[in-house]
């Protein structure tokens, strides 16, 4: 075993739907506490990468480990067999995800959205879950909205609730899937503000798929550019954004900055 354990490690990851190869052999390591931004054109496979990590989709080929443990397989008497639901649930407890379209539960208040999984999945007491939810909602600036229903919130508020909901499960890795893409431009700032806080104040591993280039530059330790299901280029944000070596990266950055 290496002295420094990777938080996430992928080797030869492939995913195809029908005949379409969305991911074509991804090798990627993410260190504990690292803030990683994944950029690339739409349809490049960035979101699929996150969805496989969250076990919402199964890879066609390849291997993923989280903290040195295989995600989609488990060992039985030394042999690797497909993961059962128990194994998947144990691995999922390390990962949280925030979605592009929030996916809040419309039939629950903000408070219940944040407490239901801690109560039923982590089995902590209602009082404790609520105390923690209040604390988290205060942090994302929604302490006054605990009794509101999602339909009564703006997009930016919904997304901040979704972040609090994911945080309430104490994940080691947080996945953010284009969390500002569905927001009106004037609401993007409040969500980025919360993410910035998280990035600076916590040692959580964060993987963000994003189109916010300036924001990615500001908070990331490393940027990965993906195109056509392959990693084209990666490195520290200063270098990727200032002097990309690959033509495709340059063209993508140019197209996005002109837009």
């Amino acid at each position: 075993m290496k002295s420094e354990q990777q938080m996430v490690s992928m080797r030869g990851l492939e995913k195809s739907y029908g005949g379409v190869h969305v991911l074509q052999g991804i090798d990627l390591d993410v260190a504990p506490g690292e803030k990683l931004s994944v950029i690339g054109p739409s349809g490049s496979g960035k979101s699929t990468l996150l969805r496989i990590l969250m076990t919402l989709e199964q890879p066609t080929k390849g291997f993923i480990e989280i903290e040195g443990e295989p995600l989609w397989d488990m060992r039985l008497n030394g042999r690797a067999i497909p993961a059962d639901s128990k194994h998947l649930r144990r691995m999922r407890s390390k990962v949280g995800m925030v979605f592009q379209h929030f996916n809040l539960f419309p039939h629950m208040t903000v408070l219940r959205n944040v407490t239901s999984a801690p109560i039923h999945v982590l089995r902590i007491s209602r009082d404790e879950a609520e105390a923690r939810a209040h604390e988290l909602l205060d942090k994302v600036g929604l302490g006054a909205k605990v009794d509101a229903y999602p339909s009564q919130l703006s997009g930016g508020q919904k997304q901040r609730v979704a972040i609090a909901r994911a945080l309430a499960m104490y994940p080691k890795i947080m996945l953010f899937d284009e969390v500002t893409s569905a927001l009106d431009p004037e609401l993007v700032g409040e969500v980025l503000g919360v993410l910035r806080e998280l990035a600076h104040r916590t040692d959580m591993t964060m993987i963000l798929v994003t189109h916010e280039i300036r924001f990615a530059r500001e908070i990331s330790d490393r940027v990965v550019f993906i195109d056509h299901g392959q990693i084209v280029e990666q490195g520290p944000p200063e270098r990727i954004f200032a002097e990309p070596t690959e033509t495709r990266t340059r063209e993508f950055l140019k197209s996005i900055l002109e837009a």
Partner: protein
Amino acid sequence: MSFFALCWSLLDGLAVTLLLTAGGSLVAIGLAWIAGLGRLSTHRVVRATAAVYVEVFRGTSALVQLYWFFYALPLLGVHLSPLVTGVVVLGLNIGAYGAEVVRGAIVSIGSDQREAAVALNMTRRQQLWLVIVPQALLRMLPPAGNLLIELMKATALVSLITLSDLTFRGMILRAETLDTVQVFGLLLLIYFGIGQALIVGVRALERRVAGRWHMGRAT
């Protein structure tokens, strides 16, 4: 015969009709949930059993089912009283339609909700009962209301297996008084009244559920 005397003599029948409607609905709701969820089960045998139940009871006629349970089942050694036969058959029949309502509403909840539940590490059971079912409930109510009306109407069929419900009493009364228009007119009005009351009840329930969850707008 005076109008009030007419009403009075139908009252006993009304009680039987209401009892059948209530009992039949309870059985139907239970079966609808069991079979509706059964059709979505991961177990092949459970899925197939639920599908066979639904297809058989939707594919045959309610009256044929009633006769079969009343005339044929005793020959197989199963003896049920007419009232129990009525409740069971109405429940089985409408429950099969209800199963499709339950299944349809559950399937109609978007995959984004299930994915959010997976991301929060919920078990399949928790995904279903904490996230999917509460939302599906609201979509089940309008079609369930229609089925309730169908069940209430179908209770009239039990008069053909000797149960003295509203229709049965009406038939006797007609034979006695020969006031066909009056008796059957009143009968129709009473059924219509029950139906309207049921509709009002279901609508109120819908409003309460929708109001409580503030689900007027999409999230």
